[in-house]
């Protein structure tokens, strides 16, 4: 998960104000790894022969552009990593050897991600026993993918290079719920060490699942809540995939999944299918191939071999993949299907598919589909997948091998011994339970609020914001009620605006009402300069109150008056001043009426 320490190998900050001040484009070439071999995953990306475009944000410099070698490692990030490792009882190495992990999908301008092994061993005590930790790595975050269109992908550099602490566990986790608990516990420790200031939902996790069909890694699960969903849906997918394979292998004993894509554009010359027409208009051509023994396995019941193939071809910019289990359909008519059948001559149990693509991709596409299907037929499901909001997972790329790493030659070995001394001096990190107790005891907020603050990783912001304003109840209220409500109804609030709001409140002696008004303005997209300049955030002065009161019906109650003023001015009211004024007015009234009497 990200550490809020500024970037790992340059002096840029974590957050960008401008996301694109210039752009550039790169290609990536495949190179040999340290041991002379070439890595599968890397090779796979290269096959796609793409052009990568980058938006240069104002929190990036020549290092992110891969135009300057990395600078010295961020000491704060290093100390955080070592403190976390010590908290888990892991063994920290004496030296840090920064490695390059080849990633040629464009998410790293260099073509590799810098990563280093900080510690091994140790564990986290969960309600279901200790979950052992295998490795703790400190690495760079990748560039943010903005868009992808066939062979051209666009990335933003704002996220690239932010330190990530990656903690891998041994297979000690028993089920999806246990996975969520362990993830929360481990993340919390990192969050509390790493000045983590955003919601727990912002934590990305990689989940590894092994059901006997090879290891599947679900990359970048962006919410704790998705961990469980992802695991459950992946178990379902692998189970039905295994069933489909057993049917397939029984039909195809020789496992001859020979994919040969044949130009069938002539058949669709007068087609009415919008899918085909749409792709054809961008210069793509229809190809079809026999899928031996796959009838009914592509999309029927739980079987989804079709989607396994579609997920793959999408990566090559191929949008339209149609297969026989879903045809006729998509505007393709029976006579067209008959012509396809006449061309491919499918036998009993055979299926076929149609793809729209550029002719120069045909060679690589055939090879890749065939490889993927063969691998699945071998019950080797190992690969890297992503997870959607709905919990379903999608193919990303083959699982990388160990060969795709070699030393980052631009950074000398880093001596960790001084860092270890610093970490020791800073003491161990607090766990969730003791922090809940401390918040309740020390700040006088309810244990329920403490619990939520800690569980949602808001204790860091709580402590920092409260240190500005010294009002634990207001701080807790803002974090637990005001902000979630505003972010739900209006828009997000940047943490630096939150800090500025608290600072201004402290400086000007503003109260809750003003703070909430300020945050509401921020969430509607106002800059803090605008917020600060708005009269709406400042309480009415005594003089202003006096003027308003003089125009009001004297018979109104104080609460009626407050409601009326609020409605008319939209500005905070200094209750004490109001009471005082109302009191003195009444006195005057009494006096004047007394005088008249």
């Amino acid at each position, binding site marked *: 998960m990200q550490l809020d320490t500024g970037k790992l190998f340059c002096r840029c900050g974590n957050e960008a104000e401008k996301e694109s001040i210039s752009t550039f484009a790169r290609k990536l070439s495949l*190179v040999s790894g*340290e041991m002379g071999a070439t890595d599968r995953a890397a090779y796979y990306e290269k096959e796609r022969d793409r052009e990568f475009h980058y938006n240069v944000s104002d929190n990036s410099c020549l290092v992110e552009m*891969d135009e300057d070698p990395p600078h010295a490692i961020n000491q704060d990030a290093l100390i955080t990593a070592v403190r976390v490792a010590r908290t888990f009882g892991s063994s920290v190495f*004496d030296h840090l050897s920064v490695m390059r992990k080849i990633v*040629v999908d464009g998410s790293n301008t260099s*073509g590799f991600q810098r990563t*280093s092994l900080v510690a091994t061993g140790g564990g986290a005590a969960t309600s279901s026993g200790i979950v052992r930790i295998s490795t703790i790595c400190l690495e760079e975050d990748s560039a943010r993918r903005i868009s992808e269109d066939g062979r051209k992908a666009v990335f933003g550099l704002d996220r690239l290079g932010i330190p990530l602490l990656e903690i891998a566990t041994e297979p000690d986790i028993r089920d999806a719920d246990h996975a969520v608990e362990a993830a929360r516990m481990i993340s919390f420790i990192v969050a509390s060490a790493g000045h983590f200031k955003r919601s727990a939902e912002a934590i990305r996790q990689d989940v590894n699942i092994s059901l006997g069909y090879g290891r599947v890694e679900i990359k970048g699960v962006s919410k704790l809540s998705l961990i469980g969903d992802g695991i459950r849906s992946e178990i379902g997918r692998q189970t039905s995939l295994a069933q489909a394979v057993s049917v397939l292998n029984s039909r195809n004993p020789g496992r001859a999944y020979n994919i040969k894509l044949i130009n069938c554009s002539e058949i669709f010359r007068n087609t009415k299918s919008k899918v085909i027409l749409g792709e054809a208009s961008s210069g793509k051509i229809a190809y079809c191939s026999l899928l031996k023994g796959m009838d009914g396995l592509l999309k029927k019941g739980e079987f989804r071999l079709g989607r396994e193939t579609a997920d793959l071809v999408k990566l090559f910019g191929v949008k339209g993949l149609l297969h026989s289990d879903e045809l006729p359909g998509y505007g393709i008519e029976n006579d067209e299907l008959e012509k396809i059948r006449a061309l491919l001559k499918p036998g009993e149990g055979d299926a076929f598919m149609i793809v729209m693509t550029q002719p120069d991709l045909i060679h690589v596409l055939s090879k890749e589909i065939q490889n993927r299907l063969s691998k699945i037929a071998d019950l080797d499901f190992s690969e890297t997948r992503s997870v959607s909001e709905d919990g379903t997972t999608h193919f990303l790329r083959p699982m990388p091998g160990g060969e795709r790493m070699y030393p980052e030659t631009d950074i000398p070995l880093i001596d960790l011994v001084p860092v270890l001394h610093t970490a020791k001096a800073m003491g161990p990190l607090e766990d969730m339970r003791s922090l809940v107790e401390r918040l309740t005891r020390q700040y006088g907020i309810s244990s329920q609020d403490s619990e939520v603050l800690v569980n949602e990783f808001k204790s860091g912001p709580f402590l920092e914001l409260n240190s500005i304003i010294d009002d634990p109840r207001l701080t807790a209220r803002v974090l637990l009620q005001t902000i979630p409500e505003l972010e739900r109804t209006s828009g997000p609030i940047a943490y630096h605006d939150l800090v500025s709001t608290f600072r201004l409140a402290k400086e000007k002696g503003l109260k809750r009402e003003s703070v909430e008004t300020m945050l509401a303005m921020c969430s509607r997209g106002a800059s803090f300069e605008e917020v600060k300049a708005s009269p709406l955030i400042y309480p009415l002065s005594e003089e202003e109150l006096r003027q308003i009161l003089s125009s009001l019906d004297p018979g109104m109650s104080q609460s009626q008056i407050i409601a009326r003023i609020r409605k008319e001015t939209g500005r905070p009211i200094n209750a004490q001043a109001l009471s005082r004024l109302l009191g003195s007015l009444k006195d005057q009234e009494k006096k004047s009426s007394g005088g008249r009497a």
Partner: protein
Amino acid sequence: MKEKASFGDRVRLSYNNVEIEGTFISHENGIITVKLKSGYNVALSDDRAEYLSVTPANRPSEERSGEREISGGVMLLATGGTIASRVDYTTGAVKPHYDISSLLGEAEIREKLGTRVIDNILSENVTPEKWILMAEHARKELDRGNHVIILHGTDTMTYSASALSFMFEKQSKSIIFTGSQRSPDRPSSDAFENIRSAISFSSLNVGEVSICMHDSRSDLSERLIRATRSRKMHTSRRDAIRDIDGGGLADIRNGKVSILGRFRPAADETVLNAKLDDRVALIYFYPGMESGILSRIAEKKKALVVMGTGLGHVSEAIISEIREITRDGVHVVMTSQCLQGNVNLNIYSTGRELKNAGVISAGDILPEVAFTKAMYVLANHGEDFGETMMKSLRGEISGRLLN
């Protein structure tokens, strides 16, 4: 001390009571480096590490030599530098290597493309003898009807390319230097595009020595630059080598070549004067420079190239020293620290005094190019040193300054 393990062996070690298993990489300066199965290297202090087992394993495949002789095509001559560099596992740093065929994809190793390693140095170690070596290899290739591409470190590329430019009075085919700012062991290396574009530029048949490198930070365009009007202007960017005032000959954008400026077309024959007199020094003037330094350097030299301030100035103390140096028969050539613009000794009293002291100036010639030119002129036109220095031999002096 005899190593317990060799590069590539499988090893198990105990380290701080943790068991480490992996591939042995190196043992140097008290540090044992092991590559784990996950791909990570760990660096262990040897005083706390204990070998549990060592399993000698298959050595990694030997480096291919990749050399290939041809005629009537394009010949790549490797001299070293980043473009031919490789991770050095003993120090962890990047060092030169010999296999240049790995720089080209299979599709690119065409019939008419040859490769040969003629040297293997980091370009800061290049010397005038190396320039002669390069020139002679290049001549051999020209004589075989090949275009020549010289793979060279970017640090001193201008020095080497301009030295060759002077030595080749005529050339029958193009000679293009190229290199890379990112080493080719990384996917983002600029080496691949630079070589491809250099091959494309060869077909222009430019009869000058030129340089092909990235034209921007993107991988989409390369530029062909006259060697004698080039300079490395950034330590790390891909487009570090720039043309200074009118050295741009051509560029390539998305595969399309455009001509940017006039160049000398290839000649019918090749005339190489492979002689350089290396008794030349390049000296940067700075305020308060004490007299005495120049004379001491001049003792073993035939020519000094001085980088003066502005239009070509040095302090009064240095002028009198220069007067003595030229009196002793050592040529002094004035260039400017500004890099851009003409040196002109007519404008200020300092300049006129330098001119009277016998100092030679040559318009906007770049200091590094004046340095290699002086070596060439000393060896080949020594009797007319001053006049030849002032004449543009290979486009090194812009008669008309547009920027």
